[in-house]
């Protein structure tokens, strides 16, 4: 158990177990502190309509393993990784469902459009390959550097640099008209 130590007791031959109260915070405190940014992160990757559910699923996964997660160096990194993976899966699944409707002749998917530049930016992030989108979202939503992104996603620094570089290049190309037009 984290925070538990055994030392010889004052009485010879008898070990006294000293249980130090773990310094880890409660799940509830963690949840209240991290939920908002996690929902934003989920929205960046999967869209606002499903962000609450995805963030909640990630938090529920953390709650079920809180005895382990709370003992990690950076518990929130674990939750962000779960959230990132679920968000990308959810996005991929919605794409599959959209294609299914076309395949089965039910209807053609109607793309939603938005004039808001912010919406356009995140929509383009979601069009990136999953890993690139995750790296970009962690960089912008949480303002994380390469090393922290690598630790969050359990990939190498070099991979993060590659994903960020490719992702940013793709975004710059797709958003070029917007970048040029914005005063």
């Amino acid at each position: 158990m984290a925070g538990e130590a055994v030392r010889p007791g004052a009485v010879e031959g008898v070990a006294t177990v000293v249980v130090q109260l773990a310094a880890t915070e409660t799940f509830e405190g963690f949840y209240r502190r991290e939920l908002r940014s996690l929902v934003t992160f989920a929205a960046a990757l999967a869209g606002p309509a499903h962000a609450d559910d995805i963030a909640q699923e990630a938090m529920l996964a953390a709650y079920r393993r809180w005895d382990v997660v709370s003992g990690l160096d950076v518990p929130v990194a674990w939750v962000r990784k779960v959230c990132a993976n679920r968000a990308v899966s959810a996005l991929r699944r919605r794409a599959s469902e959209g294609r299914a409707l076309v395949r089965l002749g039910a209807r053609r998917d109607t793309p939603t459009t938005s004039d808001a530049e912010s919406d356009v930016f995140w929509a383009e992030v979601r069009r990136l390959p999953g890993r690139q989108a995750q790296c970009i979202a962690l960089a912008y939503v949480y303002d994380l550097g390469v090393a922290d992104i690598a630790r969050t996603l359990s990939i190498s620094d070099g991979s993060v640099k590659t994903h960020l570089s490719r992702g940013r290049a793709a975004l710059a190309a797709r958003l070029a008209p917007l970048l040029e037009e914005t005063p």
Partner: protein
Amino acid sequence: VTLDELAQVATRDLAAATGRGLSPDAMLARLHRARRRRTAVVSVAAAAVLAAAVAGVGAAVGRDGATPSPRPPAVSVPAPSGETGDDLCDQPLITCPQGGGRSVRVALIDPVELNGVTTNFEALPKIFSVDLLDAYRTGVRYHTGFTVVERAVPVRNSSQWSRDPEAGSTARSIATWLAHRPFLQPTTAVPVSVGGWPAWRVRTVLRGGARMTASRNDDPVAPLFRNPTGARVGVAPDLPGEITLLRSPTGHRVIAIWSWTTSPQTSVLADSRLMIGSLRFP
């Protein structure tokens, strides 16, 4: 403006939009409710295990008066991993059989059970209607999966999607009819088994230069089946597949299981056969 500046503005806007009306306290309460519900489900399963074990011991002792050697219980408790727990079982029309591991039962007109014998399918099918669902492969580059079309009606080779009486009404006759569609590459109806029921599988790959007489939305296809809730199954050049036909266990209708892929490598279809063969129609 640079990409970074745009991103910063976009992040601020997104945070403001997602934070509006968000109540961490209310969501935390919902999380605890979900957790309690799951605990109750696991407790019921554990009680079933205990009851089965006690009954087994009692029966054995009654037979020969000796305590039997430990045997595995008849049912198992689902691992509380969270991956196939109440997130999955809370969906409309879906139930998770007790002790079923990755199994999910979908209450279509003919209920179907996906047994999760392979882990390379998404755990949750997409249900479009009471007689139509999709299951998707994971870990493949191309969009691949299968569609369960209940109450499948074989249609003429025309734009009308009208029933073709020449197909007959049994799974076997329809499979034979399907194998002789003029627009398909030469194929035969292969006898197979789906969940223990006899079935017939036919490869559906469009022949080169074949004329596609119908359309699905605006895309030309060679028509094969429709069903009462509006599904239209047709073959297109970029969608090779296999269709497995079986008689509905609960009636006189035919179920078509359409395995498809957007991959030019049709070998990926073989990987879906294990999953399709394990479907159960209890």
